[in-house]
């Protein structure tokens, strides 16, 4: 157990490759990365999400490998940086990034998927366009490794398309619950989360609730990554706000409109970051500021009211 401040200070370094996925976003850790002014991160995920837009404004993130820019292009600053090369990238797909993370998690050098056969992803001008991540792919002998490659299968001679494993330096994620050892439990649509965490050297997790090990142990099927794999677990209620958390709260759809969190303009982005990120000490401060500004009700209205009860609970048993 530590604070988000300590976790980012200790485990996130300039230039790191960072996994921040898709579905359960830790805005608590995102904001802390911005506060600490970490520079030059490469963001990887099946889809990158609006927290990556925020992290690109001051250059926290300047490189991306993803299958989808989810919401990020609504930001004119982000569009501009992609155009002028302040942000560099190579394009993949939701599945191929997920499989690349899985390959990293499983200790494989690469993994196979058909996705780009017959498409323009295989053109040289796609793989090595002027704002692509060529530099990151430089081999010791100076040549550039391809971002993916076609070989003939040694088994049947047919074409096979290989994608290199992804092994991020650090992963950030918010989860429903964890224990003090860092056993991470998640439910709902999972996307690429599990392999984002297994593939990363350091895993930083904010948890909506910290529970005793016995809670974990009586539902061990919800654990997506065990404690020995987790570098820091941080208790952060509302840790994924303004995005949502299955079983706890819905996404705050008014937030971007209310505050400029959508990063649509340079000016709006600057104002949002100054007030809501640099202007708060930590996520508790951010939530306190939210309540003070908009009232407790607005936040409370996001809470999920109906939850699902198992109709006939599965029972483990061994004697």
């Amino acid at each position, binding site marked *: 157990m530590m604070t988000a401040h300590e976790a980012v200070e200790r485990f996130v370094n300039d230039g790191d490759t960072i996994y921040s996925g898709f579905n359960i976003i830790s805005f608590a850790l995102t904001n802390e990365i911005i506060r600490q002014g970490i520079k030059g991160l490469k963001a990887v995920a099946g889809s990158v999400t609006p927290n990556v837009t925020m992290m690109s404004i001051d250059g926290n993130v300047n490189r991306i490998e993803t299958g989808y820019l989810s919401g990020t292009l609504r930001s004119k600053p982000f569009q501009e940086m992609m155009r002028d090369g302040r942000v560099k990238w190579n394009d993949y797909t939701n599945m191929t990034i997920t499989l690349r993370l899985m390959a990293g998690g499983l200790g494989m050098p690469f993994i196979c998927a058909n996705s780009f056969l017959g498409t323009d992803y295989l053109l040289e001008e796609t793989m090595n366009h002027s704002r692509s991540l060529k530099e990151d792919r430089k081999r010791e002998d100076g040549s550039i490794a391809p971002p993916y490659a076609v070989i003939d299968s040694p088994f049947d001679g047919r074409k096979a398309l290989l994608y290199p494993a992804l092994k991020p330096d650090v992963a950030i994620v918010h989860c429903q619950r964890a224990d003090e050892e860092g056993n991470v439990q998640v439910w709902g*649509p999972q996307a690429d989360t599990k392999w984002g965490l297994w593939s990363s050297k350091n895993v930083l997790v904010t948890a909506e609730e910290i529970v005793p090990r016995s809670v974990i142990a009586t539902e061990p099927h919800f654990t997506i990554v065990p404690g020995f794999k987790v570098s820091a677990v941080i208790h952060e209620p509302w840790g994924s706000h303004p995005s949502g958390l299955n079983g706890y709260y819905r996404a705050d759809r008014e937030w971007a409109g209310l505050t400029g969190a959508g990063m649509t303009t340079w000016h709006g982005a600057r104002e949002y970051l100054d007030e809501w990120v640099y202007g708060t000490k930590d996520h508790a401060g951010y939530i306190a500021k939210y309540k003070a500004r908009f009232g407790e009700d607005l936040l409370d209205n996001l809470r999920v009211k109906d939850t699902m009860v198992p109709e006939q609970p599965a029972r483990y048993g061994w004697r």
Partner: protein
Amino acid sequence: MSINLDKYTRAEMMIIATARQVRDGESCIVGMGPPLLSAALAKYHHAPNMWYCTESGPLDWIPTSRELPAPIGIADHSLTQGSAMSGDMVDALGAFVNGGWAQSAVLQAAQIDRFGNLNTMLAGTFEDPIRRLPGTGGNADIGASVERVISTMPLETRRFKERADFRTTAGYIDGPGGRAEAGLAPQGPNKCATTMCVFGFDTEDGGTTGSCEMVLERLFPGVSLEEVQTTIPWKLKVSQDLTYMDPPTEEELVLLRHLDDGGNHLIPGRY
């Protein structure tokens, strides 16, 4: 609530026409945005046993309550409602799609070309983009493996290209034999539902023979063949069986407007 059947929009007709392509009982991978709405409409209307799956992991959403609107995103938490399996992207795009178990797909795209290839990457070129788009998501994964692809987009000249500015998602590639040469399995019969009409593709066997070109199959009420042809930059093939599509039924429109929750989804021209 009484519905004025004359007052539906072309965007609504597009969603309804898309939904009509979805078959009961089939397993279907559904993309974000209008496809989620179209497939939800199909499920509520005529395909209750269609397996409605999205790429973030929920397999077979069955809404247990009709109070809720359709899911908005492919990881929408409400997709857990009634679902048969709560998996992840390895399950959904890996096992279900790439493993060959998804029988159909409903996808949106920014562009489609003469041979059914989709583009969700950019308008222009990488070095000189007119507009950068969000990227493929799961579309490329799906185009490589799914038998029957139903795409949906407004009929606009910038979207219908002789060759897509960027082929993110393989349709029939360059024509007959294109898929086999690329190392892909056959695909079809594909459809593209627009704001004016529905297209099929001229191939009986999923891309091996026929011209593999887009073919006009159904015109929406009030749309002329000329209006469609004017929008398409190549000489369009027209089916010998070209007919008008039935207008929305009252049931379809009521369901659609309920599922759309006040216009959150119907965003034609968003790209």
